[in-house]
């Protein structure tokens, strides 16, 4: 067991996967010599050589498209899109190609690849370095979508994603790279080295895709969250003294419906939180599913706490970010409702 940041855990997952499976190749912008702008691939080129970890030209559609070709050949590409906000040129390759290859060829060709991308805001990144595009992927048939919330899961989920026979979108909440940021931007963040979820086994292990985890057990209200919002919700629950059950979804697709259903049937109340914009966000899907499956157990309308339906602003980022105060208001609303 070692204490790792989320960056180190992700790097370690790459290392173990490359060591274990010669088919794993890693590439993207600045990932080779430099080791990535967030350092998630540092040292890999030196250890495994430039034919297995290399820089790519600045062309996201090329990175994903080339990855699809390699996956079809039988390699296991793990590619990095430098920021999720840079993903859009690759969207056609992801949606029309990677996601559908197995289906349209009736299994003749498949695409086992992982597309990693740092996601989310809270770093004064403005509209081009802050977005959370998860709903743009969950809406597409054929993609699995993962977002870890701590170093241990980041490593295990990444290794599971690499093992997976289908394309996996691996969203890394960059505000959690160095510690469990809880939305209090005016306070220092506890680094992972001082946090128990920074305990990461150095061995090879996987965290199965499609399994949620209860981040905080409780009776009063179910909170569905993922990524950074898991800690923001925890802070809100502690500060408001609400006995919330906080579910870290970990995988958005496939979704652990059993865990959600079990919790909401118990608490009878549900809050859905994400940093992405509200309209047609993943929270709409979660809200609909809870309504479909737990309607007769609900004692109050489901409440969504999300980013506003505006581009992610630079100066007003903390007005945009759904912080603990807004979640506390949602607790009041759902508990008194």
């Amino acid at each position: 067991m070692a204490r790792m940041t989320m960056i180190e855990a992700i790097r370690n997952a790459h290392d173990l996967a490359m060591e274990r499976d010669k088919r794993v190749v890693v590439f993207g912008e600045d990932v080779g010599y430099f080791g990535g702008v967030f350092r998630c691939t540092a040292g890999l080129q030196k250890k495994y050589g430039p034919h297995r970890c290399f820089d790519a030209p600045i062309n996201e559609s090329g990175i994903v498209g080339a990855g699809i070709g390699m996956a079809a050949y039988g390699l296991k590409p793990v590619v990095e899109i430098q920021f999720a906000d840079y993903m859009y040129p690759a969207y056609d390759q992801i949606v029309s190609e990677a996601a559908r290859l197995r289906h349209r060829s009736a299994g003749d060709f498949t695409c086992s690849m992982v597309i990693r991308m740092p996601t989310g805001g809270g770093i004064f990144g403005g509209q081009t370095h802050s977005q959370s595009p998860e709903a743009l992927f969950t809406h597409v048939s054929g993609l699995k979508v993962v977002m870890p919330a701590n170093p241990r899961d980041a490593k295990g989920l990444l290794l599971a994603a690499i093992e997976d026979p289908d394309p996996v979108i691996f969203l890394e909440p960059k505000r959690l790279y160095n510690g469990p940021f809880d939305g209090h931007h005016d306070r220092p963040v506890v680094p992972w080295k001082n946090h128990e979820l920074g305990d990461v086994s150095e061995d090879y292990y996987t965290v199965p895709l499609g399994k949620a985890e209860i981040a905080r057990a409780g009776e009063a209200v179910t909170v569905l969250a993922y990524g950074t919002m898991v800690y923001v919700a925890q802070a809100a629950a502690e500060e408001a003294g609400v006995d919330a059950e906080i579910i870290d979804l970990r995988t958005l697709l496939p979704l652990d419906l059993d865990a959600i259903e079990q919790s909401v049937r118990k608490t009878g109340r549900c809050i859905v939180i994400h940093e992405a914009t509200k309209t047609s966000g993943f929270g709409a899907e979660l809200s609909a599913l809870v309504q479909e499956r737990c309607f007769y157990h609900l004692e109050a309308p489901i409440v969504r706490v999300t980013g506003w339906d505006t581009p992610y602003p630079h100066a007003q980022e903390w007005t945009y970010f759904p912080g603990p105060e807004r979640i506390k208001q949602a607790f009041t609303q759902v508990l008194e409702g």
Partner: protein
Amino acid sequence: MTEPRPLALHVPEPGCRPGDTPDFSDFEIPRAGAVRRPEVDEAPEDMRDMAFSVVRVLNKAGEAVGPWAGILDAEALRNGLRHMMTLRQFDERMLKAQRQGKTSFYVQNLGEEAVACAFRMALEDGDMNFPTYRQAGLLIAGGYPMTQMMNQIYSNSADPLKGRQLPVMYSARDHGFFSVSGNLGTQFIQAVGWAMASAISHDTRIAAAWIGDGSTSENDFHAAMVFASTYKAPVILNIVNNQWAISTFQGMARGGAVTFAARGHGFGIPAICVDGNDYLAVHAVAKWAAERARSGLGPSLIEHVTYRAGGHSTSDDPSAYRSKDEFSAWPLGDPIDRLKRHLITIGEWSEDRHTQAQAEIVDTVRSAQREAEANGTLISGDKPSPRSMFDDVFAEMPPHLREQRQEAGY
């Protein structure tokens, strides 16, 4: 039939990484004045040679020589020098402000000041640039108020972009400066569209597209090339080859081509490489391309060969991926030193005047900064209202946004 041998992947590497000695001996630099100046209406296929050499005007002795020399008078050159010195001083102060926490991010122009500053002087009012985040020289040379630039950098209460955009992603329509996106390459094709609109409207305006060496890899670069070529759009397509795209050297984007300019040939677009650290050369080539565009002769591609002397942004440390000595070994020198030397050589400048100009510029930039900081910085003072972040998503605010704004407490 020989036995097939196992293949190996070619991954290009720069000649020089940290700890290595920079070596630019492979970089063939023609003598200043040696490259010809084609007529603007010369057939593109007859001037392919222009993509494989480098137009240079200033020689080592500080003289302006050859067929591209003689356009600018001494006053224009002194203005050009002041613009570049101002930009460098502006960068220095804003870099410091970022380090002091007064803003979140900054992108400097160090070492490539001549490119945007000289280019701007070849355009007319009404023309439009579609810049990247490293063309602040277009604004400085175009007379845009520095205080406004700083207000934007500080995201303060007077920020013309209301705190919405990352620092340096300016927008200044009246100064021929299109809103900088921050995503790479996306605007190269938009410049072509703007130029096509001018042609559709039987206007006389032209557009200038800007992209970095690394971003020429993006699909939008190629989209721009095919549209510009097909419609003979009145556009100047600028590639600023500053050698580095964060940590990847320009060979990662150029691939097997000899130059980026040569990319123009497949599209039948005339292409010229220019010494990007030579103010006179950049200006002369820009003027030539602008004349082509305005005469209805269509697009031109310019590769500005320069060197990014600073980091990509305040978010990276270049010593992690390239030699610290590379800029001092860079054979095209420093654009400010070169123009200064030229002006002194022709008797239109002196060390004393330079020192005095520098002092005046330091003072002007400092005053602008003081004025901007009175409007607040990212961490202190007045800020744009959070209420305003709900404006301009649409021309007219739809009911759901009005509701969200109220929910946010504004």
